[in-house]
């Protein structure tokens, strides 16, 4: 029994070959890299900047203690005051995701998602298409206690030898009822390229 089993195993091994080839297809010039690596290909706004900004802001906010009792926060888009195109929505999304994961806050619909939320609740209540018991009732949405808004600005200097970029990201948490800014933080990043 053992001998037969061994022969079968040996044949299977020979047939499959010594599996040393990696399970890849295509050009060797393309590869997957570390998404957490420090990227310095050019000195424009990079993935590392996005990650560093989101990380430092969320941790500072989560640890500040202001979000005690998991308050409801509405996130607004980050204003881009730099001279380059930056998808600031991604900064907002990353900050929101990380705060959500830290378990310190709950989020109401963002200003950009609000229309979809309103459309859906109206559709459920006004179209008559849905079973009554399953319809989400009007008037139960939770209002935000705080709104979170930020901006990113830059100072760019060029000479024949250098290009220097200085980014400043600021984020503030504002109490909706009082209008008071309850928490605020900044992150500065400097990147210099020598030509």
């Amino acid at each position, binding site marked *: 029994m053992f001998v037969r089993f061994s022969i079968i195993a040996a044949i299977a091994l020979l047939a499959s070959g010594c599996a040393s080839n990696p399970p890849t297809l295509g050009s060797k010039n393309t590869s997957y890299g570390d998404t957490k690596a420090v990227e310095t290909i050019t000195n424009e706004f990079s993935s*590392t900047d996005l*990650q*560093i900004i989101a990380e430092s802001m969320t*941790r500072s906010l*989560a*640890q500040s203690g202001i979000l005690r009792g998991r308050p409801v926060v509405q996130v607004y888009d980050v204003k881009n005051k730099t001279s380059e195109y930056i998808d600031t929505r991604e900064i907002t999304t990353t900050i929101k995701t990380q705060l959500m*994961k*830290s*378990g310190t806050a709950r989020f109401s619909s963002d200003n950009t998602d609000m229309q979809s939320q309103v459309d859906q609740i109206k559709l459920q209540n006004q179209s008559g298409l849905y079973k009554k018991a399953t319809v989400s009732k009007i008037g139960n949405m939770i209002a935000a206690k705080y709104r979170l808004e930020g901006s990113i600005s830059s100072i760019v200097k060029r000479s024949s030898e250098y290009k220097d970029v200085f980014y400043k990201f600021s984020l503030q948490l504002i109490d909706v009822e009082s209008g008071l800014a309850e928490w605020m933080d900044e992150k500065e990043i400097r990147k210099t390229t020598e030509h």
Partner: protein
Amino acid sequence: MRFKLIAVVILALLAGCATTAASKVVALGKLRDIEIDAMRVARENGFITVNTQLSNTSSNNKTFYYRFAWLDPDGFPVAEEETWKSQMMYGEQTRFIQAIAPTPKAVDFRLEINTP
């Protein structure tokens, strides 16, 4: 006696503990000209905060890369990997890097560090 012991433990927790740096540092290769001197760990509003003192032993400016890994009581990561950060130090400079855990679930940490 028992109360005294508890009081000492609480006091130590409140004051933050100076940890032996070596057990918390994972160096990727040999560290060149960068030394890790002391680490202070405290828990603020439920989140672990680590303050690390580093010094540049060379007289030239040096850049190093670092990130923290946050661990649960069993030594497994509690959050996604952090992004690597680049930090420049002037010659002979001593400076501090501060880090905050991403979630209150983190009870321990490792500092990954690399000098190019």
